[in-house]
């Protein structure tokens, strides 16, 4: 049986190696190469009279380290992703809790509502937000009318960092709600009764029982939101304007417009390393906590 399962693991493993591992290695290599004259890459091996010679450079990493613009953007993207993840947690936790505590015949429908946005295309949903956030849009119209009533000036949302965060929270919320729901739904309600019986108020019940038991779900949801948010480029492209630009936009520009593949690769590699460190940290924090109950 064990031998069979090992054989069965081969195709997906080969798939991952060929279509994920290999391109990643090519990216690492590209980040050390020289850019080609008209885009693309100079060959990594130079052919001269004495044979082949390695033609690699740390130039891209030097540039990245010296130009504060890129490190600043990396930090800014990190903060955007962090704020997005925290807002998703703040909004998603009560929602997941509500669904987990509702009668079981309702839960399926409520979960369906959570994943319903996935049924339409991601870009179309962002375009919809552009309409809502535009100065003539319904949402902003009502908001500005309200503000005017209090004697405050009209605000703009579209093409601001706030619009980027708003849309990223909207897009990623289900990725927070689902792992939290799975965790909260599994928690034994008898534990809460025991806690109250032993003198805990409802607030203490939450902080001493529900919350610590839900930490694996919190870590999973935060990782699932943070990682894609960190590399996001479509949302800042559409609603971020010049202020709301993120590191993902720069990487895309390096490949498609500046045609500096090595520099784009170097940026992508640094971003990947940051995420790997964070993922490892999350796994370390969640260690051993998954097998409660």
């Amino acid at each position, binding site marked *: 049986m064990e031998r069979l399962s090992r054989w069965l693991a081969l195709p997906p493993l080969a798939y991952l190696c060929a279509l994920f591992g290999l391109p990643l290695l090519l990216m690492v290599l590209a980040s050390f190469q020289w850019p080609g004259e008209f885009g693309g890459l100079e060959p990594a091996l130079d052919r001269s009279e004495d044979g082949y010679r390695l033609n690699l450079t740390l130039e891209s990493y030097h540039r990245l380290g010296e130009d504060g613009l890129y490190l600043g953007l990396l930090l800014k993207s990190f903060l955007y992703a962090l704020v997005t993840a925290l807002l998703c947690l703040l909004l998603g936790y009560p929602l997941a809790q509500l669904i987990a505590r509702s009668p079981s015949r309702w839960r399926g429908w409520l979960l369906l509502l959570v994943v319903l946005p996935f049924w339409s295309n991601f870009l179309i949903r962002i375009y919809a937000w552009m309409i809502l956030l535009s100065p003539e849009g319904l949402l902003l119209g009502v908001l500005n009318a309200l503000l005017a009533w209090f004697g405050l000036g009209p605000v703009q949302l579209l093409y601001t960092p706030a619009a980027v965060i708003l849309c990223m929270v909207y897009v990623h919320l289900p990725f927070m709600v689902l792992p939290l729901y799975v965790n909260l739904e599994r928690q034994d309600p008898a534990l809460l009764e025991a806690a109250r019986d*032993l003198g805990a108020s409802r607030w203490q019940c939450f902080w*001493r*029982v529900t919350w610590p038991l839900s930490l694996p779900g919190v870590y999973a949801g935060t990782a699932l939101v943070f990682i894609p948010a960190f590399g996001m480029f479509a949302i800042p492209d559409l609603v971020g304007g010049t202020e709301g630009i993120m590191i993902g936009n720069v990487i895309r520009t390096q490949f498609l417009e500046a045609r500096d593949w090595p520099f784009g690769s170097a940026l992508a590699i640094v971003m990947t390393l940051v995420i790997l460190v964070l993922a490892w940290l999350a796994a370390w924090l969640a260690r051993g906590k998954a*097998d409660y*109950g």
Partner: protein
Amino acid sequence: MLELRGVSHRYGNVLAVDQVSLTVASGEFFTLLGPSGCGKTTLLRLIAGFEQPSEGRILLDGKDLAGVPPERRPVHTVFQSYALFPHLTVAENIAFPLRMARLPAARIKERVREQLAAVRLEGLAERYPAALSGGQRQRVALARALANRPRILLLDEPLAALDLKLREQLQLELIRLQRSLGITFIYVTHDQGEALALSHRVGVMCGGRLVQVDRPAELYARPRNRFVANFIGRCNLLEARVSGRVNGHLVLGIPGLPPVSVPAEGNLEVGELGVLALRPEHIRLQPARAGEQELSGLIQGHLFLGATSLYQVELVNGMRLDVQVAGGHGEVVLEPGTPVRLSWPLQAGRFLRE
């Protein structure tokens, strides 16, 4: 002192607890006994404060508990599933009620150590519940519920999930703990043996009602009705009708059998219907001596039970009786079909109204 006055509880249309009135003294070991679904767990939840009575009042030392939430009642519970916090160690579990009560850290540490010693788990303080056996979890649950010295400890079938040997051992420990702490225990079980062995008094429940409350020996010797007689120990029940009174005894008529006398109790009228209750161990397979009652029948079967044997006897009218005789081995076993005479002291029989 805990007092229940006419307490009822309704789940939708179902009356789970029906007009229960009861007083439990301080330091008493009181057991609620009944089959599953009789309302005993609901009654426990009402006392703990997880449910509010639809009618009636619950008073603790004269103070009405209505509207007092579970966390403010000096009443702690040992749950059937134990409900230990899986993310806390044994010591942290036991410290939980103490921390909720905001005791100083030094006191908490000391009390946890005491509690661990009281349930003999000193070496396991740093273990997580997942790494404990069933019996160990049960002890942690007990130590945790007793840590903050509640006025009343509620125990909801705490031993049901354990095997027989462990159960007996823990029963003895429960008695020891209860007697040494002097805390009122209210224990829920469907196991009549457990109820009789542990309790000062037992309340038998059936269909949401408290049918009889008595000391174990009284309950066994003088069940008030057919349900209690049948539920506590083994009992023969023969349909009978009061046909008269002679010398202060009741004479019972059973169709197809000679009249049988039982002691007269209560205000029974001639013509009333009920059952003659006879414990199997009170019947002998011998002719009656002076003042004894007698019937005759045929041996139907024999069960060897170790210390005793059980004979099933068919009476002349087709009714069957169990007879328990001491000395299971070494005696001649009576073969099926052997005619026998059954006798019992008049005081052993009881007439129970329907």
